[in-house]
């Protein structure tokens, strides 16, 4: 341990401490979450949202491509025929049952890509904690609701 080494080390320590001191006077990065909104990028992949046509009919035709491509097997679709009395979508068939299991979903977005009608979009809702596993299997009644995430959506 030569004197030069020690002096060098001392200088390095002072330099390191100058760096940390600089950050001491920087504004913290923490987002005070419930009080402040989180900033999300537009392509953030959150909870799925099933889209509707402008006239209110569902875009989903119950083809099941999303369920087929899903690598986590999180989607279950059961299709049924539209009738004149009960019309849900513009085409012949509609999704009678559409469930996404959020204990399995990995938010990869393959389903969104596979969807031929553009009915399935990954929205920005990220607050997906629930009290039980059952609640994490979400059906059409939830997925059709446009979400209002507690976030600011940034420009792309």
């Amino acid at each position: 341990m030569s004197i030069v080494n020690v002096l060098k080390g001392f200088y390095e320590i002072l330099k390191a401490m100058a760096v940390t001191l600089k950050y001491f006077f920087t504004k913290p990065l923490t987002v005070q979450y419930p009080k402040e909104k989180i900033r999300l990028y537009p392509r953030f992949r959150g909870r799925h949202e099933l889209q509707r046509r402008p006239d209110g009919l569902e875009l989903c035709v119950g083809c099941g491509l999303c369920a087929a491509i899903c690598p986590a097997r999180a989607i279950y679709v059961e299709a049924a025929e539209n009738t004149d009395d009960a019309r849900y979508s513009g085409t012949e068939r509609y999704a009678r049952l559409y469930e996404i299991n959020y204990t399995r979903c990995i938010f990869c977005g393959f389903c969104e890509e596979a969807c031929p009608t553009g009915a399935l979009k990954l929205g920005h809702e990220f607050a997906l904690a629930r009290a039980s596993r059952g609640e994490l299997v979400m059906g059409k009644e939830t997925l059709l609701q446009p979400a209002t995430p507690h976030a600011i959506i940034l420009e792309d």
Partner: protein
Amino acid sequence: MDWIDTLLIPAIKAIVVTLGLLVGFAYMTLAERKICARFQLRYGPNQAGPFGIFQPIADALKAIFKEEVIPKHVDKWLYVLSPVLAMAPAILAFAVIPVGRPIVIAGRTITLQLADINVGLLYPMAVAGLGAYGIVLGGWSSNNNYSLLGALRTTAQIISYELPMALSLVSLVVVTGTLRMSGIVEYQAALPLIVLQPIGFLIYFICGLAETNRSPFDFPETENELISGYNTEYGGIKFALFFMAEYINMIVVSALVATLFLGGWQGPILPGWLWFFIKTAVILFVFIWVRASLPRARYDKLMHFCWKFLTPLAALNLLVTAVVVLILR
């Protein structure tokens, strides 16, 4: 000298010092958490009250109401005793530190210092040395590998830092010619001793980091390797006592640095106690700053550094100081 001078005033001072240190400890934990957080671009605790000022109270309540757990395999008597052994010397050491200019109340001059003993400088060194017994015995009585290793490291550490620390203070005594704390502070009326003893200051500060088991020399409790080391088996208020000992030691060492090297309560314009407070707070900030900046050293490196570098340096410093003092006299 009547009973008021000999009994009442020291008693009041002792209570004030103890309470002051306990409150100081409580808010030191908050300050450390908040300042450390700011160094890491976080806010730190800010939910309990404005700026989190009730956080220490919440922590204290939690520690007190925790279940009292004494593991079966421990040496019960020493296990319970050692937190007290660590804690008591920490508070005791503050007794000789003058916190302000002497004040006059009802015709009596009261020094703002619990005891102005004539070996004032020796006393905190001796008492702080006792504090290590708490840690060593705590680690040993826990009957746990990790605790024992933490205790071993404390012993390795204490024999390393004590020598350069004492030597750096000896050169200070050579300059001031007194061991009395009030004398040392008076000596610094014109010039704080850090100007005359910059190397002594650095050595003392580094050894102070080692003495208080602070990062980068926090070997007794190295969380990553030793799972908190000596206090692994401790919980609740017994753990809080160890924690208290560490923080109060930190306050004491900072106060000592402020008193010995930065001129104590001496300073222009502001009242003496405020100067003392500011100087102590600055040193405490540096303690936290060092912790936020530097990674933990290895304990053989500390021994290496202390024995092969700091001790010779302190001896050299003492030699040069003595020669210069002798020539100038």
